[in-house]
C-alpha cells in the first residue's frame, strides 16, 4: 500500500474539493427537481433520490474525507462498506418485517 495520495503535494489549487462541492450542489438540485418537477411515479422518485444521495455520500467520502489515503485505506473502505451492508439490513429489514402491520393494524 503506497501512500500515493497522502504524499501528494498540496500546494496545488484545491480542485478536487471544488469539483466535489459543485457536484454536491448539482446533485441536491437534481434531487429537488426529480422530487418536485418531474412526473415520475412516487416509487421511481424515491429510487432516484436515494441513488443521488448515495452518490453524494460517496463524493464526500472520496473527495472530502480522503477515505482512500493512508496506509489503512483498505480497512477504512472495508469498514464503511460493511457499515453500508448493516445499514441496508437494518433499514430494509425493519421496514419489511414491521410492514405486517400495514394491512390489519390501526394507529
Amino acid at each position, binding site marked *: 500500500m503506497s501512500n500515493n495520495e497522502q504524499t501528494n503535494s498540496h500546494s496545488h489549487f484545491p480542485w478536487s474539493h471544488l469539483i466535489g462541492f459543485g457536484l454536491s450542489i448539482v446533485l441536491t438540485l437534481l434531487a429537488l427537481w426529480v422530487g418536485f418537477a418531474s412526473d415520475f411515479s412516487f416509487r421511481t422518485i424515491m429510487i432516484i433520490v436515494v441513488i443521488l444521495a448515495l452518490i453524494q455520500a460517496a463524493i464526500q467520502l472520496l473527495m472530502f474525507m480522503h477515505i482512500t489515503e493512508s496506509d*489503512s485505506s483498505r480497512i477504512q473502505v472495508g469498514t464503511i462498506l*460493511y457499515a453500508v451492508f448493516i445499514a441496508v439490513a437494518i433499514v430494509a429489514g*425493519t421496514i419489511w*418485517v*414491521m410492514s*405486517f*402491520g400495514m394491512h390489519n393494524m390501526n*394507529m
Partner: protein
Amino acid sequence: MKLDEFFVTGDPLIYGADVSIALTMIGAIFVLTYFKKWKWLWTEWLTTVDHKKLGVMYIIAAVLMLFRGGVDALLMRAQLTVPDSSFLDANHYNEIFTTHGTIMIIFMAMPFLIGLINVVVPLQIGARDVAYPFLNAVSFWTFFMGAMLFNISFVIGGSPSAGWTSYVPLAGLELSPGVGQNYYLLGLQIAGIGTLLTGINFLVTILKMRVPSMKLMQMPMFTWSSLITMVIIIFAFPVLTVALALMTFDRLFGSHFFTMMDGGMPMLWANLFWIWGHPEVYIVILPAFGMFSEIISTFARKTLFGYKAMVYSMVVIAGLSFLVWVHHFFTMGAGGAVNSFFSITTMLIAVPTGVKIFNWLFTLYKGRIRFTTAMLWSLAFIPNFVIGGVTGVMLAMAAADYQYHNTYFLVAHFHYVLISGTVYACFAGLYFWYPKMFNHRLNERLGKWSFWIFVAGFNLCFFPMYFLGLAGMPRRIYTYGIGDGWMSLNVLATFGGVLMGIGFLILVYNIYYSFRYSPRETTGDPWDARTLEWSTPAPVPHYNFAHLPEAKGHDAFWIMKEEKKQGKAPEKKPYKPIHMPSYSGVPIIMSVFFFTAGFGMVFSWHWMSILGLVGVLATMVIRSFDYDKGFYVSVEEIEETEKKTTL
C-alpha cells in the same frame, strides 16, 4: 419521594442483602485503611491503563456478577422445585429472572470474555499494549459503573421486572411505572458505551499493533475470534444504544416510540432489541470458540485442524448474525415470507458452526490428549454445545417454533449454548491463562472436582427442561399447579442447579487455595503451549516484551521452541527504551460522573443528571487538553526486570 420508597423494604431477603452489602463495604474500607492500601489501590489499580490489570479487574467483576446471577438462578430454582410454592411471590420472581438474565449476559458473560481478551490478545500478537490504553480504562470503568447502577436497583428503588428483553408495552411507563425499568435502561446504556469503545479499541489493536512479522492468516485463533467479535460489537451496539435511548425518551420525556397511545409501535422495540440481541449472542460465543481452539490445540499437542476454515466460518457467522433476528419473534405474525426467510438464514448458521465442531474433533484426532482442567472444560463443550446447537436449529424451524416459543424448551436451548459455550469457555480460559495473570496455577485436583460436579449438574438441570417445554411449561411463570405434571422434572432441574452452585463454590475455593498453596511459576510456559503469550516470562513485565518476538506461523511460539531445539538460538540483541502510556485517574472519575448522571435520570432528579453530564463533558475537555505522551522505560529498568523474571 419518601425514604421507604427510595429504599426497597418489606422483604427479609432484601434486608439480608442490605446488611451484607453494608458489611462488605465496611469490611473493605476497614481492610484498606488498616493495611494502608488506599494509595496502592489508587495508583496501581484504579488509575491503571495496563491491559493486563484491566483484564484482571474485568474478570473479578465478572465472577462477582456470576455469583449474583447464580444466586438469582438458585432462588428461581428453589421457587420452581415444587408446585404452588410460596417462597417467592410473583413480583419478586419477575424481578429475579429479569436481573438474572440481564446480569448473566451483559454483566457476566461479556465482561468475562472481554477480560480474557484484554489479558491475552495483546500478548498473543506481540504488542506492548492496546491501541488506546486510556480508552481501555474508560471502557472498563463505564462497564463497571453501569453494572453497579444496575445492581443497586435491588436495594434502592426496586429492580426491573419486565424480563431481560424488556418488551413493551409491559416495560413502558404505563404498565411499569416504577424506577426499576429506568435502571435497566441506564445501566445498560452506560455499560454499552464501554463495550463499543472496547470494540473499536481491540479492532484497531489487532489490525495495527501486531508484531510486524505476523500476517493476518498467522494470528492465533483466539485473536481471530476476538477480531470478528469486535466487528459485531461495533455494528450491533449502536442499535442497542438507540433502542435504549428511545425507550428512555418514552419513559422520561413523553415521546411515543413504543407506547400504546398516539401511534406508538410496541413491536418496533422487539425488532430493534433483537437486531442487537441476536448478534449479541454471537458476541458471547465467538471468543469462546477462539479459546477452545487454543486450548484444544495445546493439549492435543497438535496444530489446529483447518485453520483457514475456522477463520472463514467465523466470518460467515458474523455476516449471518445480522440477518436472522426475526427468529426471536416468529409468532408476531409478520407473514409467511418473512418467517420463511428468517428460518432459512438462521438454519444456515449451523453450517459454519458444524465446520468448527468437526475441525475441533479432527484437531484431537491423532493428538496426544492431556486431560488438564482447562482441557476438560473444552472437551465437555463439544457434546454439550452440539445439543444446544441442534435444538437451536429446531427452534429455527418457524412452524415448530410456534410450539417451542416462550417455553422451557427455549430456556433449555439457550442455557445449553450459553453455559456449555460461554461459561465453560470462561472457566477453561481462566484455568488456562491463570498462570499468566497471577503467576501460579489453579489446583488441578480441585479443578477436576469442580468440573465434574458442575458439568453433571448442568446437564441434570437443563436437559429436563427440553421435556418441560414439550410438556407445555411456559417460561417466566413463577409457579405451577400440581395438575400440570411438571414437578418431577423440576425437582431434577433444581438438584442440578444446586450441583452447579457447588461446582462454582469449589472453583472459588480453588482460587483461594491456589493463592495460598500453589507453587509460584518458574517458567512462562507451564503448559508447553503454542502461541506468543507463552513466550513472555513469569511474571509478565508491564511492558510485556523486552524484545518484540517474531511470528513465523500461527503457532509462533511453538515454532520458536522447535527452532531452539534444533539449536537455532536467537541472537541476543541490546535492549532499547520502551514507550509506555501514563496511568490516568480521568477514566474512573468520568465514569463516576456517568453513574451520577444515570442515577439522576433513574429518579428524574434533573439537577443530578445535569451535574453528572457536565462532569462527563468536563473530564472529556480535560482529556482533550492533556498532551501527556507517556514515558520511556529505561534500558536499565528493562535489564533489571528481565533478570528478576524467570524464563
